[in-house]
Each structure stands twice: as C-alpha cells, then as structure tokens.
C-alpha cells in the first residue's frame, strides 16, 4: 500500500511541475504587435528598447521602470509618442499599425473596456 502511495506521489510531483508554472503568475508582459502580428513579448520589469517595422517605417518602443512609451514613430501626427509613459492599457499607432499592450495575467484592471 505504501509503495503504491509512494508511486502516486512521484507521479503527482512530476505532473505538478509544469502545472506549477501556470499557478504562479508571471509578471506583466509588454506585447508589441505590428500589422496585427505579435513581434515581441517582453517583461515589463526589464529595461529594454526595441525597434519594430510598421506600415510606414520603424517604431521605437522603450520599456523602463515598469513603464512603456513610444519613443519614436514615423507617423504624421505622433499621437502615440505624445501619449508618453504608460503603466497599463495600450499605445496604439494606427498609421504605422503598431500596437503596444501591457497585459496582466489576471483581470486587475478596474474596467474591462473604455467607451470613448
């Protein structure tokens, strides 16, 4: 009987290994998409600057101090750059078709969507 439990125990331990990954929440992620295709998924807590090719040219996205901004963009009105640093939500550059989103694994946002 004990042997059986022992065996079960080992199996469960092994099974729980990959499952544990799901259980412990990863930190927030920064998703960068160009023309609706994900180009980068980066952790929010590591400083990094990346360049993404968009429809009109290169967009430069900077991650620092758990914030994200559009540093440079080839779009005409630069609304995305003017948005500045964000801690949650998204920066969208429609002309260059680049979308930067901060995703939380849990639904921590107070609102599920914003009507504007």
């Amino acid at each position: 009987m004990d042997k059986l439990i022992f065996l079960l125990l080992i199996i469960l331990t092994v099974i729980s290994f990959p499952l544990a990954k799901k259980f412990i929440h990863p930190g927030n992620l920064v998703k960068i998409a160009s023309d609706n295709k994900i180009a980068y998924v980066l952790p929010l807590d590591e400083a990094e600057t990346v360049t993404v090719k968009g429809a009109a040219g290169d967009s430069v996205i900077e991650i620092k101090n758990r914030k994200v901004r559009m540093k440079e963009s080839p779009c005409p009105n630069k609304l995305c750059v003017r948005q500045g640093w964000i801690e949650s939500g998204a920066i969208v550059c429609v002309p260059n078709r680049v979308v930067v989103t901060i995703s939380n694994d849990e639904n921590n946002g107070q609102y599920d969507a914003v009507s504007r």
Partner: protein
Amino acid sequence: MRKAKFQIPNSKFQIFRSLFTIHRSLITIHCLLFTVYCLLFFSGCAGQDKTYKENMVIMDTVCTITAVSASEKDAKKAVDAGFAEIKKLEALLNFFSDDSEISAVNKAAGYKAVKVSVETLDIIKKALMVSDGTNGAFDPAIGPLTKLWGFSGKGAAGIPQDDKIKNILPLIDYKKIIINNSLSEVFLQKKGMAIDLGAIAKGYAADMAIEAIKAAGIKAALVSIAGDIKGFGIKPDGKPWRVGIQDPRADGIFAAIDLQDKAISTSGDYQRYFVKDGRRYHHIIDPKTGFPASNSISVSVIADNGYAADSFSTGAFVLGPEKGIKLLESMGLSGIIVDAGKKMHITKDLIGKITIEKPL
C-alpha cells in the same frame, strides 16, 4: 516564473527526505496530505474559466476581443471568428476604400441601383430606421459632408467654404436612399449623394462579432471597436463586464457602468477635431446645418444592440442635451449626455446604475 523554478525542486526534496528518514506512519500522513493538496491543485486548475484578450487593428482603429473559456484553444478560435467578422464588414462598408460595396453604391448615385450583400442591405435598413427615429439627426446620407470636412479621410481637416456646404446640404437626405428588398439593391436618387456608415458600422460590427463568438460556443465575451462596446454573458468571477466612459476633457474615466448583454457607444467632440480661432471643430456634423453640433461634448448610449447604441449616440449628440435625453427615453434607451457646460444629463432609468468616478 523565476519563483517557480526554485519552489518545485525544493518541495520535491522535502518529500523525498521525509519518505526516507521519517517513520512510516508519518510518511502515510504526509502522503495523504500531499494527495489532498494535489486534489485541490487539480480541481483548481481543471475547468476553470479564464479571460483571453486580443487586440487587432481593423476599421482604422483598435478592436479588442475578450473571451471567457476554460480552454485557451476554444477562446482563441472564438476571438479569431470575431475578428474575421469585423474584417469582413470593414471590406463591405469602408467609406474610404474604392473597393467596398458602399463605394460602389456611392459611385452609382443618381443613375443606377447597385446589388449589395445581405449584410450591407441589413445595416443600411437599420441606419434608415434610426434616421426615422431621430428625425434625421442621424443620417447615413452624410457622406458628402464627411468628404468636405475631411475628418476621417487621409486629407487634413479644414473649415469648408459656406457656399460649398449650402450647395451639398440638399444631398444629405436619408429619404433619398431607396432600398429594393427583393432584389437586394440600393439606389441613391441624386447624383453626388453618398452613404457614410461611420456612425453605425462599428456598433454593428460589434454585434456581428458577438454573434460569431456565440456561434463558436463561448459563454461570455466583450467586443470593443474603438469606443463601441458589446458585452455578452458574465466574467469568470460572476460579475458583469465593467465599462468606463472617457472623460471628454481630461485623461481617465468620469463614469462607469455594468454591461450585461448590452452595448454602449460614446460620441464625443474630443476624438477627431481641430481648433481654429478659439473654436473647436469636430467630426460629429449636424446633417441639417452642415456644421459640427455644439450643444454636447460627450454622449454615451446603452442599448441592446451595438448598432443602436452607436447611431443613437450620434443622433442624440446632434440633438443636444434636452432633446437628446427625451429622444433616448422615448426609444427606451439609456444614456448619459455631457453638455457644453460640462453638466451631466442622464436618462431616468440610469439613476443608481451609473457610478460617477470623478467630477467633470
């Protein structure tokens, strides 16, 4: 993730140590406890609903679909089906694309009827219904004015000359859009007329996306196309979807509302505008005057369907706060209107249902 790597070998080590060094009965207790822990662990994982959220640029804006499912694969499939529906409608209804069905109808204005798809016919019929309901405050025949003001096209927006506006005003008349149901045809009676569905298409697309997601067997979802939002079902935590309404003059949300199997749309003068000589010129044009409507700054409408929320928010915006609220109440719709003095007006049914998050 980093935490996980350390925890697992650690607990494994403890289990082995207890197995080999402690008394048998203790081992049994340990095993039993571990089994209980595992059972709890599995019951917590299997079959639990989660939300999956994805963004995509369609209709020249960001569309976000959130789907609730226990399976990531099922959720993704449903989300993709939703996006596909929005893309399909964009191709049919885009006012600025030469290849859309709407453009084909507009090009044939004044000389022939054009056969259109079921979807295009359906949305035009709905638009005409809302035009009747708002007595023309919402008018899909607004196309010539949209082009003239240039708010959403590629060209820069500017103030058109008065006589140019005067000349095209007679063309802005939804009653001159003729539908032939049996032939699925649309005819614009006067040359120069043009249908622009910009104030109804996003809400309509949100409705259709939700239908596609439902058909994919998903139990709850939220579709947001710019500010046109349609929700269905409830979240995994048992609560309805919570939607914030953008402060028309500052960053952030000024009000919030729960949305269960309903749609909300907001029309504001802060989305696409320019300022000239201290005056704000924005994209919500009064079909009767040809100039931006100026009595309201933000109008949100809650309705069963996205197309109604979208088009009635434009109609109520054009009518102004008093007439707007009256119209919404008479149609059985809910709404919040912020007037030019930043005063809030709400339909009676919303009292107690809307949360004011900050003063305007």
